[in-house]
C-alpha cells in the first residue's frame, strides 16, 4: 500500500528518474529502478516543511512537491492522480504524528528547561530546605520569577547531588568468606558448601594463590567443580585444626598443598608493603600491646581458643591474619567491572588488576623519592629549618618609630592653649599639696563619706542599671532578635532572605538590553515595593518598646530597597529621555 511507482525530479526541468517511493516509519525512501543511479533519496518526515501538488484536471502530470526545512524541494511524478492522493494522505498523517511527538521535547528544550531528573532533584532540594521552599513559593508561584531564573543562581545546589551519586563505588560485603560453614545432612559424612559468584569473587580477591591456581589448573588439569571440591577440602582440613592430617594430605596431593600452604603471592605483597611503610611513623601507641605472654590470651573462634603460637606449622593460619586480609580486600573495594558468571574471567580480571597495581608500585620512583624527602624532612629539627616560602607577598611593615615620632610633630603643629594649661598644671600641684597638708593636720574626715552622698550614689547607680537593662536587655551580648516574639523574628528573617533574593535578581538584570529583562525588572520592582510596605506594616504592628530596635533592624533593608528603587527610576528616566531624543532625531532627519 505504501509503495508507489514514481519518477523523481530534483528540479522541474529534470526529466526524472523512475523508481519506487516508499513510506516507512518516520521517513520517505526513494529507490530508483536502476540500482547504479545515484538519485537514491531519504527524507525524514519531521524535516518536511510543506507539500504542494498539481490539481486534477490541470494539464500537468500528477506531481507532488515536498519542501524540506533546508528549502530543498523534491518532486515526484506519479503514474496517476489516485496514487498521488493516497501518498499525500500518508504523508499528511505522518506529518501530523511528527508534530505531536516533538511537542514534548520542544517544551523541555526551550528556555533551557530541565529534564525530569533535574526536576526531581529540584523537588528534593526544596523538600530538604524549608526556607528555600518558602522563597520558591513566594516568588515562583506568584510569577515574580520564573522557575529557571530561580534555579539559575542555585545550580551548585543541584549539581552537587548528581556528582555524588554517580561517583559512589559499590563496596563489598563485610562478611568473611572463611565464615562459610558447610551444611551437613547429619547422616552421612558428606558436607556441602554453597558457592555463589559473590563468594568466588571474594575468595579470589583475598587469596591470590587460589586465583593463580585456578588460572593454572582450570580447565587444563581439572574441571571447575573438581577445583572447588579440592579447595573446600583444604578449607575443611583447616577447620578441623588437625595439622598432622593436613600435612599428610598435602604431601600426597600437590594441588591440595597449594591451598594449604601460606599464600606466597600475599607474602610477597606484604613484603612490598612493608618496604613502602613510612619509617618516620611514630609507633608509640603500639607499645604495651604485646599480650601474648599472658595466660588465656587468644580469640574465641568456633568454640575453641585460637591461640597464635609462633612455632605452629606452615599449615596454620590465625584468625587475625584472616581478618586483616579480609579488611584489606573490603577497603580496596570492587575494583573490577566484570560482573560475570564466568569464574575464569573474574579470576583473570583480578589477576590483571593486581599486575597493573604492582607495576605502578614498581615504576613510580617518585613515590620512593617523596618518601626519602619526607624522611629527611622529619628527621631534622623543625625549629632549625628555614621558614618555608609561601607564595605570598611579604608584608612590609615600616619602622614603627616613624609612627610614634611623627605623632609629636603633628601635635606640635596644632594650636594649643598652652598658657592656660601651664597655669592649670601649677594650680593642680598647689591644690594637691594643700589637700595633703590638710589631711596631715586634721586627719581623715570621720565618716569617710557622708550618708546623704552615699545614698545619692546608690540611687543614681540603681537608676543607671535599671534603665540600661531596659534599653539593652538582660544580657548585653544577647541579640535583640531573641527578644522579639517568635513570629516577628521569623518574619524579619524571612523578609531579609526574600529581599536579598529579589535584589540579587534585580541588580543582575542591569543593564537592560532586552524587553524580557525590562518586564522582569518591572515585576521585581513591584514585588520589592510590596515587601517595603510589608516592612512598614510590621514596624507598626510590634509593641512600642520594641519598635525602636526593630526599626534599626529594618532600616538597612529599606535602605537597600531604596537604592534599588532609585536606580530603577533613574534608569527609566534615562531610557525615556534617550528614546524621546531618538524620536526627535528621527523626526529631524
Amino acid at each position: 500500500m505504501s509503495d508507489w511507482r514514481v519518477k523523481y525530479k530534483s528540479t522541474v526541468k529534470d526529466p526524472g528518474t523512475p523508481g519506487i517511493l516508499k513510506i516507512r516509519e518516520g521517513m520517505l525512501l526513494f529507490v530508483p529502478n536502476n540500482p547504479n543511479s545515484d538519485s537514491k533519496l531519504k527524507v525524514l518526515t519531521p524535516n518536511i516543511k510543506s507539500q504542494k501538488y498539481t490539481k486534477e484536471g490541470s494539464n500537468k502530470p500528477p506531481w507532488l512537491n515536498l519542501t524540506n526545512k533546508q528549502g530543498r524541494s523534491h518532486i515526484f511524478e506519479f503514474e496517476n492522480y489516485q496514487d498521488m492522493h493516497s501518498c499525500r494522505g500518508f504523508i499528511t498523517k505522518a506529518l501530523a504524528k511528527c508534530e505531536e511527538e516533538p511537542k514534548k521535547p520542544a517544551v523541555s528544550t526551550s528556555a533551557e528547561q530541565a529534564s525530569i531528573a533535574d526536576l526531581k532533584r529540584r523537588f528534593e532540594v526544596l523538600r530538604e530546605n524549608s526556607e528555600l521552599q518558602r522563597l520558591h513559593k513566594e516568588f515562583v508561584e506568584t510569577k515574580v520569577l520564573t522557575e529557571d531564573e530561580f534555579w539559575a543562581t542555585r545550580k551548585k545546589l543541584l549539581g552537587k547531588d548528581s556528582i555524588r551519586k554517580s561517583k559512589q563505588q559499590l563496596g563489598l560485603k563485610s562478611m568473611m568468606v572463611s565464615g562459610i560453614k558447610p551444611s551437613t545432612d547429619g547422616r552421612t559424612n558428606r558436607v556441602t558448601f554453597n558457592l555463589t559468584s559473590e563468594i568466588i569473587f571474594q575468595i579470589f580477591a583475598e587469596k591470590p594463590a587460589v586465583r593463580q591456581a585456578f588460572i593454572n589448573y582450570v580447565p587444563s588439569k581439572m574441571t571447575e567443580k573438581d577445583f572447588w571440591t579440592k579447595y573446600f577440602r583444604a578449607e575443611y582440613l583447616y577447620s578441623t585444626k588437625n595439622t598432622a592430617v593436613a600435612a599428610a594430605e598435602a604431601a600426597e596431593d600437590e594441588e591440595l598443598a597449594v591451598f594449604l600452604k601460606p599464600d606466597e603471592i600475599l607474602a610477597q605483597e606484604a613484603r612490598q608493603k612493608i618496604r613502602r611503610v613510612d619509617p618516620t611513623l611514630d609507633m608509640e601507641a603500639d607499645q604495651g600491646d604485646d599480650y601474648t605472654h599472658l595466660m588465656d590470651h587468644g580469640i574465641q573462634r568456633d568454640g575453641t581458643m585460637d591461640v597464635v603460637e609462633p612455632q605452629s606449622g606452615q599449615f596454620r593460619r590465625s584468625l587475625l591474619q584472616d581478618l586483616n586480609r579480609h579488611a584489606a580486600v573490603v577497603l580496596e573495594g570492587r575494583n573490577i567491572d566484570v560482573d560475570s558468571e564466568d569464574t575464569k574471567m573474574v579470576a583473570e580480571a583480578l589477576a590483571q588488576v593486581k599486575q597493573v597495581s604492582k607495576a605502578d608500585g614498581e615504576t613510580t620512583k617518585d613515590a620512593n623519592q617523596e618518601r626519602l624527602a619526607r624522611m629527611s624532612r622529619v628527621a631534622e629539627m623543625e625549629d632549625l629549618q628555614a621558614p618555608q616560602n609561601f607564595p605570598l607577598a611579604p608584608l612590609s611593615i615600616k619602622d614603627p618609630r616613624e609612627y610614634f615620632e611623627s605623632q609629636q610633630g603633628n601635635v606640635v603643629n596644632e594650636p594649643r592653649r598652652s598658657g592656660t594649661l601651664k597655669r592649670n598644671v601649677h594650680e593642680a600641684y598647689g591644690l594637691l599639696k594643700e589637700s595633703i597638708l590638710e589631711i596631715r593636720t586634721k586627719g581623715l574626715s570621720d565618716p569617710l563619706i557622708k550618708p546623704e552622698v552615699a545614698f545619692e550614689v546608690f540611687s543614681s547607680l540603681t537608676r543607671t542599671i535599671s534603665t540600661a537593662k531596659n534599653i539593652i536587655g538582660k544580657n548585653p551580648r544577647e541579640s535583640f532578635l531573641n527578644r522579639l516574639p517568635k513570629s516577628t523574628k521569623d518574619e524579619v528573617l524571612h523578609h531579609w532572605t526574600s529581599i536579598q533574593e529579589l535584589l540579587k535578581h534585580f541588580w543582575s538584570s542591569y543593564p537592560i538590553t532586552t524587553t524580557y529583562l525590562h518586564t522582569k525588572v518591572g515585576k521585581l520592582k513591584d514585588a520589592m515595593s510590596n515587601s517595603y510596605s510589608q516592612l512598614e506594616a510590621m514596624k507598626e504592628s510590634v509593641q512600642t518598646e520594641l519598635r525602636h530596635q526593630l526599626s534599626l533592624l529594618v532600616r538597612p533593608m529599606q535602605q537597600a530597597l531604596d537604592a534599588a528603587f532609585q536606580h530603577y527610576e533613574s534608569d527609566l528616566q534615562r531610557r525615556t529621555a534617550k528614546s524621546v531624543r531618538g524620536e526627535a532625531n528621527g523626526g529631524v532627519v
Partner: protein
Amino acid sequence: MPALFGSLLEKLEDFIARDEELAKEDEHVERIASSLLSGSLSMALCYIQRVFRSGHLHPQPRILCLQGSPDGPEQYVAVMNSIFSAQRLMVPIDSCYIGTQNSAFLQQASYITGGVHHAPKQLDGLFQFLTTIFATDLHTRSFIQLPKPVGVDFRASCFCHKKTIDMGYVCSVCLSIFCEHHKKCSTCGSVFGQSKLDGANASSSVNDRKRKAPDS
C-alpha cells in the same frame, strides 16, 4: 592616724614634689595635654606579667584606670595594642572617667577586656563609686549587677593625622586607618587601586556595553 596612711601620704607628697620638678625642667617643651594612658597600661601589664611568671599563683589581676583628661588620639595605636595584650592575658581593664566628655579609649578598653566602665556624675561621692563598683573582685562580679554602658564609642583615630574619625579608609592589607584617600598605605606600602566608582564615572562606555541576554 594609722601608720599606713602616714607612709602613703608621705610617698604621695614625694611624688608630687618630684613631678613638679620635672614639669619645671621642661617648661619650654610643649607637653601632651592628655594623660599617658598607653605608657601606664604598658607598665601595668609588664608588672602583671612579672607576677605571672614569678610563681604558680594566679592573683586574678585587674587594672583600674582613673582618668580626668581627654583622650590623646595620637596614642591610639599604642593604647589599642595595650588593650589587646590585656585581652590576651585575660586581664580586665576597669575604667572610671571623671569629666564632662567620655573617653572612647577607656570605653573600648573595658568593652574589649570585659571590665567595667563608668563615668560617675556626682564627684563628691567618688569614693563611694570606687568602693561600690570597682572594688568588686572578679569572682563577685558574676553575682552582682554592675552598671553597663548602653553604647560604646568605637571610633578610631586615623594613622595619618591622629584625628578621631567616624568614617574613613582602611588598608585592605594591614588594616591601617586613614581619614582621607591615599595612593599608598603609609604603614605597609601597599599601593591602592583606583576605586571602581571613579572608573565607572570616568567612562560611560562601560554602561553602554552590550550584554548577552539570557534568552532571545
